[in-house]
């Protein structure tokens, strides 16, 4: 387990540094690329947790699709090279405070619920087939609800984008 702990430390360090870089950088494309590094770090941590399917989905959906669309949109509109002086909004202390509050609540909830419990090391590796089995049997209702939600968002986007 020592090797995993060292790997976790390195990956977590890079992820946190990239997250800080993302909010402090003065260039919007750099911020998006830092976000890619954050999401990649999370995917690496999922691999460490033997959650291979989630890690792959993270890469495919967040890096391969969402971030590419972000960058595509930024570059299509306005993305000057170099520092943008107006990158930090006037309300940044409020944003920092709410981010801290959210982080605090999450950490408190996790520690309060799990404390020093550790997962059994032999039974935590789920095959992808098991994941899909549970999605399509035990969690079928939430899964379908999310599908309908996404469909509604899709139709909304089409309606907003239509001119005629």
């Amino acid at each position, binding site marked *: 387990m020592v090797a995993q702990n060292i790997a976790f430390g390195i990956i977590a360090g890079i992820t946190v540094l990239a997250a800080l870089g993302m909010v402090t950088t003065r*260039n919007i*494309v*750099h911020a998006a*690329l830092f976000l*890619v590094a954050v999401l990649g770090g999370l995917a690496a941590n999922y691999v460490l947790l033997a959650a*291979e*399917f989630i890690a*792959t*989905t993270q*890469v*495919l959906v967040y*890096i*391969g*699709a969402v*971030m*590419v*669309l972000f*960058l*595509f949109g930024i*570059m*299509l509109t306005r*993305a000057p*090279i*170099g520092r943008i002086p107006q990158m930090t909004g006037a309300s940044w202390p409020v944003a920092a405070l709410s981010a801290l509050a959210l982080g605090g609540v999450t950490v408190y909830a996790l520690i309060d619920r799990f404390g020093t419990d550790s997962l059994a090391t032999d039974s935590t590796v789920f*095959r*992808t*087939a098991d994941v899909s089995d549970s999605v399509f049997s035990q969690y079928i209702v939430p899964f379908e609800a999310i599908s309908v939600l996404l469909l509604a968002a899709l139709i909304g986007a089409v309606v907003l984008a239509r001119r005629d």
Partner: protein
Amino acid sequence: MSELTLTGALGLAYWAETSIKLGVALVVIPTAALMLGYLFLLKMMAFMQSRLGPQDVGPSGSLQLIADAIKFLQKEDIHPAAADRRVFRAAPVVVLASSFLLFVVLPTGPDAVVENLDTGVFYALAVSSLSVLGVLMAGWASASKYALLGGLRAAGQLIAYELPLILAVMGVVIQANSLNLQEIVRAQATGEIFGFGFVGNPFILTQFIGFLIFMISAQAELTQTPFDMPVAETELVGGFHVEYTGFRFLLFFMAEVATTFAFSALATVLFLGGWWIPGFDFDAPILNVLGPMVMLAKILLVAFVIFWIRFTYPRLREDQLQKFAWKVLIPLSLANIVVTGIFKVVL
């Protein structure tokens, strides 16, 4: 890649096995790029255009690409004055990394695979989508309108054709009952066509529409003609890598050809029966030696078709390309999934 069985037989430690596999992969990838580049990009294109192609370096010019690589390495590493240097430098590495990661899951024998991932084909599609990121970075960081336009065109095209590519693979996954590439090969090896099982059931027979959609989308993902608007010389000078020189351009070139090799290998595994040879047991150890050779032959066949189309067709217009993806390929691949699903349940 027969060394891989030896490591299993010798009972090497995890780190030793991994470093040997890594070494083999690092040799295979540039070799694959050189082979495709020489055979198809230089020689075959020349013969199709009634030229001789390279003649001088090595027998029949076979060392031409090595000479080119040495030339590229000697060139000055130029950055445009207005470029964003860090992003400019990182972009080719991202593209090449996406191509390297693809090779990790490609099986070439019962044990001859770098990492037999449970989600093999899903992983391959996920890492292949990373190259878009590098292309966008290159286009933006070059601080040139031609490069930026090329990058945006490439991104729009890669996003549009990623969907039919993934949906075309879905048919195979439904039929094979697995995302694992080895299991997909096994399903084809043990399958039967009307009770006749000697040659197995290569999915090109039952998933022919899926195969066609996969090959068309792969052609677009690789930005090969007729889908090469991102690098259209007449409109964009050279597309997203127009500002790149020397070894950074070499990285882009190598990534392009190596990705073509990897996609041909993926098509071979998914549709042409992979490394299995009719008449052999699925787990026969000898297939670790013969499998890679069969794989190579099939990969060269698929790559031949990709380059053949590339040298034959004129390029599409940007709007035709987007229309073709969204209005033809995606509905067709969705219909393919529905039909495959119905057959899966009924049969």
